[in-house]
Structures are given as C-alpha cells and as structure tokens.
C-alpha cells in the first residue's frame, strides 16, 4: 500500500467539505464515557467552552450539537454539560446522535473519543475500547444517508489490527477525511524544534512512561511524527521486538539500542526521579535506573528502509515524553521533549488537548486532515505488534502487514504559537 502526497491531497480534496455556504459546521461527538479529566471531557469541553489559544479565549467556529455517551457513571459530567449547553443534545444511540433523531445524517463532522470507561481486557492485556464498533455505526449512517463527513478518532484506531486496517480502508473507499492519533505530535516541545525535513535519521528513540496498550501508543506517535520526515517519507515497519523486565536490562547492557540516545532523551526530561536522596536532579547510573524503574518495557523495531527505532516505557524514572535521534552529519544527538502540561499535580488543565482540537477544527472547516492518518494507522499497528511480541514471550514479531507508506506534511503541525 502506498499513498503519495498527491493522492493524499486529491483524496481529501475530493471529500465533502464540512463548511457549506456560510453555515457553521455542526458536529456530533461519540464517546465511551465522560467524567472529569477523561479524554471526552477534555476534547468535547473545548468545543463547548472554548480554550486558551493564540492570546485569546478561542471559541471554535462550529457547533457541537449532539453527544452520545456509552457509559454514564456516577462521576459523569456530560449531563451537567448538556444542561449548561442546551444547543448540545444527548442521544441514546450513535445513529441518533449523527442524524439528530431524523432519518439522515445531519452533522458535518464526527468526533470519536473511545478512551476510558469500563471495557474488558483480553488475554494480551489490550483494553477492548469499542472504537471500531463505534466507527462501524458511524459509517452505517454515512452509507444509509448516501453522504459522508470528516471523522476524527482520538488515539489509536483499534486495539485489533485487522479492524484498524478496515477503518482506514473504509475511510478511503468511502472518501471521507479521516484523522486520528495522540496529542504528542501536536503539543509543545522543549526546545521548540522540528526534525528538519529530509534529515537522514539513523536511529530514533523515545524515553517515556505509562503502560502497555496505553502510553506505549503515545511514545510511538512521538517517534513517528519525527522520523516520518526522513528522505523518502515513511515506508513501513518490518518487525517489532519487545523487551520487558530482566530482558530489558539485558538488552540495555547488550546495547540493543544506543545508550547515547537514551542519555540525550533523559537529559530532556523535566521529571527525572532523583537517584540519590537529598539531590533533586542527578543523572542515574545503570544501577540507579534498574532500581528506580518499575516494569520497564522496550519496543524495538526496524523500518523497511533500515531505520531502527526504540520506544522505552520507564515508569517511575520519568513522567514525560522525550525524543532523541541520531542524524547523519550531526555529531550530537538531536533531541527534544514533547511537553505535556499534565494535570497530575503539575497543572490543572490538560492543555495538550488544545492543539489536538485545533487541528480537528481545521479538518472540519476545510475537509482536509492537517496530517496523514497513515501515521496513526502505522502506530496503531506498532502498538498491537509490541503487545503481540510481549505476548509471544518477547519474540521478534514480523510485521509484513505494516508496509504502510506515506509522506509527511511539509508544514510543522506541532504547537508553536
């Protein structure tokens, strides 16, 4: 599968534009659950209440008119929001949210937020968030109405690769603009730097934190939004191998991934756990890292063009996302932190959702995704492949299905203004 830049633009340009005439686009939100600090609250709330953006409190020039919430728990805030914003109606089914209770699609865009909520885990540890199932119900309305509108899918497409691929293929065959992914590619960076377009990346790595089938996806998107800018663009991934626990430390000592990139990434962290009592910011030794890091996980993978990347989950060592790469012709590693103002005590607002919502707005206004969904298709597959390798006792897992090619956007799309 190969999508050239020209086809990518042509495909999206041919899609129905959300903005027809002078009308403000009308959006439906389809969510798993809506509580304080859930993804749905962060995303839907920004459409309703506005958000700080470019020196003003920005109100998106569109109306979120309908909401479907799959699970209403004790801590639900969606009903409070619906009461305060009566222009947004809650519907008991996805179809009704999209048709506004009529028989035909009645919105100009759909925001799908399938994160959080009580869903079963499978034997591989994947939470079976119903993004695919929600998506299927959305496209059924599209089919029944003979019309499609742009869809944004928060985070990865599905825990199940085949379903994720089907979601992507459906968006292509039906010809609607489709965007997805994490906040990591669009948030602030410290320093505020972009991978130079065409940089010959030899190795790339991310040191981050969080769990498997969860923050690993964010770490993979952190790497992918950078390395996709290498000459020739993205060409897919051949294999993935996971390392966990003692295997992780053995791989570290065997230099399976470059220590200099790990050091550069750790030097971008603002949350490096002090290895010594009484010191607030010291660089950890190998023994320190081993002692401090709880259940470390690495996904090591090779792209079709030979680029090798490593995503490291190092819980309790850091609480941020740090990227480093070896670039040809550059003596020192290229590195930055994808900075998340995280409301875990450090902030009160998860403002990294602001650039994510801002990118959605652009798609809903223009009908053109601001970055290619193929990125998230690939990181979805990488996440599932990492989980698969862990499940197969950390054996190398070949990924011929991840022969995903695409071109990056020329423009940087991370938060800089």
């Amino acid at each position, binding site marked *: 599968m190969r999508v050239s830049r020209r086809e990518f633009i042509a495909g999206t340009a041919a899609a129905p534009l959300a903005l027809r005439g002078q009308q403000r686009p009308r959006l439906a939100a389809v969510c798993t659950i809506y509580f304080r600090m859930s993804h749905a609250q962060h995303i839907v709330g920004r459409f309703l*209440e506005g958000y700080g953006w470019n020196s003003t409190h920005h109100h998106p020039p569109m109306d979120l008119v309908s909401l479907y919430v799959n699970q209403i728990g004790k801590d639900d805030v969606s009903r409070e929001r619906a009461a305060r914003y009566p222009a947004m109606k809650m519907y008991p089914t996805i179809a009704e949210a999209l048709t506004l209770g009529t028989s035909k699609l009645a919105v100009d865009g759909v925001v799908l937020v399938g994160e959080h909520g009580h869903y079963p885990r499978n034997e591989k540890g994947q939470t079976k968030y119903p993004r695919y199932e929600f998506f299927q119900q959305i496209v059924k309305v599209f089919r029944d109405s003979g019309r499609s509108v742009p869809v944004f899918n928060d985070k990865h497409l599905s825990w199940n690769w085949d379903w994720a691929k089907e979601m992507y293929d459906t968006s292509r065959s039906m010809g609607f603009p489709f965007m997805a992914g994490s906040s990591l590619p669009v948030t602030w960076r410290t*320093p505020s730097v972009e991978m130079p377009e065409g940089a010959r990346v030899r190795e790339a790595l991310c040191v981050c934190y969080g769990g498997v089938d969860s923050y690993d996806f964010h770490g993979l998107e952190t790497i992918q939004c950078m390395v996709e800018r290498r000459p020739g663009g993205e060409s897919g991934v051949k294999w993935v191998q996971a390392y966990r626990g003692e295997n992780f430390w053995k791989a570290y000592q065997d230099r399976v991934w470059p220590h200099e990139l790990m050091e550069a990434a750790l030097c971008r*962290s603002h949350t490096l756990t002090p290895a010594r009592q009484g010191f*607030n*910011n010291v660089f950890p030794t190998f023994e320190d890292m081993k002692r401090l890091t709880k259940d470390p996980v690495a996904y090591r993978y090779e792209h079709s063009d030979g680029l090798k990347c490593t995503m490291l989950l190092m819980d309790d060592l850091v609480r941020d996302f740090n990227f*480093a790469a070896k670039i040809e012709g550059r003596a020192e590693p290229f590195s930055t932190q994808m900075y998340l103002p995280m409301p875990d005590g450090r902030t009160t607002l998860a403002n990294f959702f602001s650039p994510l919502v801002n990118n959605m707005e652009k798609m809903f206004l223009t009908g053109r995704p601001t970055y290619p969904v193929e990125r998230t298709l690939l990181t979805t597959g990488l996440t599932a492949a990492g989980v698969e390798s862990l499940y197969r006792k950390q054996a190398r897992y070949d990924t011929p299905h991840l022969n995903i090619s695409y071109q990056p956007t020329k423009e940087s799309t991370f938060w800089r203004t």
Partner: protein
Amino acid sequence: MPKRIAVITTVYKYLSHAQHEADRILVGYPHAGAWHRPDMKIVSLYVDQKPENDLSAARAREFGFVVYPTIAEALRCGTDKLAVDAVMIIGEHGNYPRNEKGQILYPRYEFFRQCVDVFEKDGRAVPVFNDKHLSYSFEKAKWMVGAHERLGFPMLAGSSLPVTWRLPDIELPLGCEIEDALMVGEGGSDPMDFHALEGMQCMVERRKGGETGVRAVQLIEGDAVWKAGDQGRWSKELLTAALSRSDTPLGLTVKDGRTQDLVHNGELPKLVKNPWAYFIEYADGLKSTLLMLDGALQDFNFAARVRGAGLMSTQFLLTPEPNVTYSACLIGKVEEMFVSGRAPYPVERTLLVSGVLEGCLTSRVQAHKQLETPHLNVSYQAPKERQHCRA
C-alpha cells in the same frame, strides 16, 4: 584547570536554592540535550544557617571542599589572599525576619559587601553571581552594582524566569514599540512577585530606545484591583491574552475539568480573595502591570500589545519539583559568565526590578499611593542575543 568557585549562602537544605543551584556544579546538569559537567569545582562554602536538615557538611565531605566559618575565609580558602575564580551568592531560604513592608531581610547585600571587602583588601576581584534580587533595599542594591562598576568585576543576578523555557518560544523583537504590557502570576510577596516582575522586565526592556528607568510605581489591592480593570487602568484584553497561556486555572477547572474564560465568566473575584496590582510607569511613557492573583492560577504568563505585531503572549515555564530544571537554565548562564568573564545580560535589569519591587511594597504601606521614583533612573540596553532556554 577547573574554575575554583566559592558558594556563599544562607542555608543548604533539600530544595533550597543553594542546594539545587550549587549541586549543579557538583553533579552536573541537563543542558542542550546532554548531561553537562562544568569544568568548575566548588572549593569553599559559607553557610549562614545550619538547620537540622543541613546538607553542607555532607556535601563538603563527599565533594572535597571546606565549609568556612566566615565569608572572607571562604573566599581565601583559609589563606591570606583571595583564592577562588568566582563567587556564587545564594541568599534565598533560611529564617530571616520580615520588615514592615513584608520584605524578607535576606542578607544578600551583607554577603556581597564582605566579598567586596576581600576583593578590595586583596587587590583582585572575580565574577560574582547573585541569586534573585540584589537586596530588599534599592540603596543597598545600588551600592552592589556600584561596587561591580568600580572594581570592574563581572556580575550577574536575578531570577530563572527570564532564562527558562517559554510556551510559546517567543521573544519580543528588539526595538519594538510596546503599547501595553501585563504579567499575571501568584505566590505572594516578596519571593514570587520579584520573579514575575523580572519576567516582565526581560520582555519590555527590548522596546525601542532600550530601558530608561521607572518614574512612578503604585501597588493597589483588593476590590480596587477589579475597579481599576473596569476603568481600563489595566487591560482585560491583555489579561485574557496572558491567561490564554496558563495551564493552571483554579476553581471550576479543578472542580470538573472545564476550561475557563476567567476574565469574562465572573469567577475571578470569587477565586481571588486579595488581588494585588503593581503599576509601573516608565520614564519613556510605557505603562505595565503585574497582577498577582493568588487563588486563580499557579503559573506566570505575560502579554503585550506590540505595534505592528498585535498581541504577543507566553508562559514562563516553571518546570516541576524536584528537578526544577529551570534552575539548570540559570546555572548555564552563570557558568557562561564564569568561563567568559562576560555577563550574558545586564545586572541593571535586576537592579531596576529590585527597586521597582521595593517601591511597590512601599506604596502598599503608604496607603497604596502612587510614588514618584526618580532614583529608579536606571538605563541599559537589552542583550541582542536571546537568552532564554531554546536549545
């Protein structure tokens, strides 16, 4: 040969400024994507107060330096002549009284004066870094800068705010025309208002003509602050712009996660029990405002209206404890001066801000009157190079 450093401090305990700043010389610090180990060695330490959790003795043992009972001995390393290449004065934290204006009487001037005494007696002066403002007293601060000029040693001072990361990474164009400027912060006086004032000063000093000093200051508090906003004395547009950069609105955001337009949703007066507004009138006519809004937010955000560029705003990112990596940005600048013998930005900035802060706190205890400040005729040019962390 590594540079020999003397550290003169009030207290050396976990997360005190002395600990996280001096430790960076001892164990290195993150800089431009690498763990930088400075070619500097702390050879002596003077510490004014040793509480139970004092770390100075343990550091001295581990890193092989001596804690001396006096500042002169620390600078001379027990010999009869100045025996260090540079001095770090870190007079923050520790138990010191407050005066009637609420200023903590940290003995920075007193420490500095003893250093200058050694320089004069020994006929040689070395670079000095003074953490935070120079002194609670402008007269004393002026004496400090005067000594630096008289003896010709490099001097750097101030807060981490001017050198930390910015979100977004902006700088006002050198020589721009600033129509209005505002900073919003929190945390009380006089530790945090100094940081906020210096953050604002490092932005506005880039205006056309450079810095020419401050002719009047005023501090008002309570409902008068909201009234002043209604009357247009400070700009709600600029406060909106500054708050658009905040990651820490309180109140309803904490309660249920929602974003807020705090300037227009009516919540500010409910959240902020005692707002303070610091009004600064510059000699060239620029007016700027610092709003300290404890209870509304927990970060520091700047906005200005710039002719031809419109609104410009940014957050000065104070990264979290315990790493407080912003202090690594500051120590990078200190090291730059110790190595090159040149201060990367003028100490006159900190001199002016020290005086502005003292003036505002004096206004507060004099019935919030506007005070003329002819003594704050401090002129200087902003550095051409950007100095905040961006590499």
